[in-house]
């Protein structure tokens, strides 16, 4: 490994080194806030390290990783997501009676794992990345282990991910058996050779897609996802819904940019069916939810379905549409879960939608922020969600994937109903007894306000970001 390799992987090295330092700090430094500040600064440092890494791009670092602009974009997004989650968790964790050091350590390690996925170009780094993310999440979900809900959610997540990983691995093994290589580019080179018509291939890729869909919580592999999202602490749920999924999605983009996925082929159909089901079932199931976190969970399932539309359309607009929508989705989802977290503590979460009734009267600005986040999820102005959805729609139309575009539209329309219900609840008259759990601290409101600001700016002036993304992501799909 040369110096150039180290520089291109600098963010990862920083995170790994800081993980060890945080662990030592937990042991030797009694200050309760120490691990928070260490984690925050290491994520900022890692983000800053993207700049020198960008100067070495594009580059293959051993067989396992490939660092190019696409990878750095998603890595930046993931690191930013980890940073925001950490910032939003501080107030939440301040109310936790036990030790908090491990929480921030694990958030950092999980972010590391997700970044691995963004730069992965080999089955082994794929597997290690998902493994690191999952392992950290098991503990993060169960972070308050004396609460039944947490343990239940974590066990369900463990069983789900364990099965998913096994299915994924078996698919990878079959593909490896066919091609003799685990590297994405090698696989694509060998896939186009004429004698490769092995039946292993279809089953292998089919299983791989099933495994990926488990991890992305797409229908029909979403079975316990709403339970997990409801049972996990709110900031952790936000993390799972954004950072963990972004890593796998980026890897999926890379994998299938190499291995061709012609429209109408069995694998494409498999993906399309999963996407359509996710968009429809995700939205329909959300309508009857009483719990805000479950509602957001189903909404996140539906949004991943929307993101599949440009991926399957494979048009010119697709890469930047996907990139832009990921940015908007990150901001919106982190904002939404951030508000839930701001009003919760590790024992009582502000989950029941009835608890949001009349929130506007008591907490003006948070209610407005949450309302804007929901507007963005609906795809209404003046938020970035509108631009994002239009972009997805355009990408779908360009690829002429009419069935998927129809599902996108139908899903979004169904979506109006449940999002608007929460907004109406917030702005209606408050119940007679005042319920509130007070919002937490200045830091959290600052972060949330910044997120809201960016969301509005993206809604009104999206062009700079779109242009930047289009320049960065030119070589995928």
């Amino acid at each position, binding site marked *: 490994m040369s110096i150039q390799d180290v520089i291109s992987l600098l963010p990862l090295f920083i995170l790994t080194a800081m993980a060890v330092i945080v662990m030592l700090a937990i042991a030797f430094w009694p200050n309760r806030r120490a691990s928070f500040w260490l984690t925050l600064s290491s994520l900022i440092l890692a983000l800053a390290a993207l700049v020198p890494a960008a100067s070495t791009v594009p580059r293959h670092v051993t067989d396992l990783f490939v660092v190019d602009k696409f990878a750095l974009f998603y890595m930046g997004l993931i690191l930013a997501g980890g940073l925001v989650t950490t910032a939003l968790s501080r107030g939440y964790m301040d109310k936790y009676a036990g030790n908090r050091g491990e929480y921030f350590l694990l958030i950092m390690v999980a972010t590391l794992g997700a970044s691995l996925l963004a730069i992965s170009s080999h089955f082994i780094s794929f597997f290690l990345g998902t493994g690191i993310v999952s392992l950290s999440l*098991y503990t993060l979900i169960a972070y308050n282990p004396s609460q039944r809900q947490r343990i239940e959610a974590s066990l369900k997540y463990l*069983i789900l991910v364990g*099965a998913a990983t096994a299915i994924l691995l078996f698919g990878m093994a079959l593909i490896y058996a066919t091609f003799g290589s685990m590297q994405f580019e090698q696989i694509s080179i060998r896939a186009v050779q004429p004698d490769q018509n092995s039946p292993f291939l279809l089953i292998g890729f089919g299983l791989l897609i099933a495994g990926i869909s488990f991890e992305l919580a797409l229908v029909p592999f979403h079975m316990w996802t709403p339970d997990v999202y409801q049972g996990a602490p709110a900031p952790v749920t936000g993390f799972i819904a954004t950072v963990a999924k972004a890593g796998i999605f980026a890897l999926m983009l890379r994998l299938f940019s190499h291995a061709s996925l012609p429209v109408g082929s069995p694998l494409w159909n498999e993906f399309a069916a999963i996407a359509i089901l996710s968009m429809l079932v995700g939205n329909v199931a959300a309508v009857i939810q009483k719990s805000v976190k479950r509602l957001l969970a189903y909404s996140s399932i539906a949004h991943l379905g929307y993101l599949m539309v440009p991926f399957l359309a494979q048009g010119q607009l697709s890469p930047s549409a996907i990139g832009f929508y990921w940015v908007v989705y990150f901001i919106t989802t982190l904002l939404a879960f951030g508000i839930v977290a701001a009003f919760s503590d590790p024992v009582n979460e502000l989950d029941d939608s009835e608890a949001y009734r009349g929130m506007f009267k008591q907490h003006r600005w948070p209610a407005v922020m949450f309302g804007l986040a929901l507007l963005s999820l609906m795809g209404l102005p003046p938020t970035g969600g509108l631009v994002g959805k239009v972009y997805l729609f355009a990408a779908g139309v360009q690829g002429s994937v009419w069935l998927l575009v129809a599902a996108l539209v139908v899903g979004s329309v169904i979506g109006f109903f449940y999002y608007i219900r929460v907004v109406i609840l917030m702005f209606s008259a408050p119940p007679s007894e005042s319920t509130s759990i007070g919002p937490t601290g200045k830091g959290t409101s600052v972060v949330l306000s910044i997120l809201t600001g960016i969301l509005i700016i993206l809604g009104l002036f999206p062009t700079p970001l779109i242009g930047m993304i289009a320049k960065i992501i030119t070589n995928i799909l």
Partner: protein
Amino acid sequence: MASIPMQYVLILSAMLFSLGLIGLIARRNIFFTLLSIEIMLNAAGLAFVAAGARWAQADGQVMFMFILTMAAAEVSVGLVLLLRLYQQFKTLDVDAAKDLNG
């Protein structure tokens, strides 16, 4: 040593994998669920080693080592969660953990 066709080993690993999958879905005791996950991971590992042997590469074995690592870590966390579950719910029944279904 005479050769074993790769297909046969893959068929074996597929059989073990499906047995694990059946165990995962059909058993109610969480302990057996964790055990079934181990069976599935082991079966996938077997497939990797067989594939590696067919191509005469060490990669299959390397992947198996990483699978081993992951399986060990995952089962440790799974077992400690199981102990906590028993402490909270007083049972190892998967269906008993129904707090979240809503």
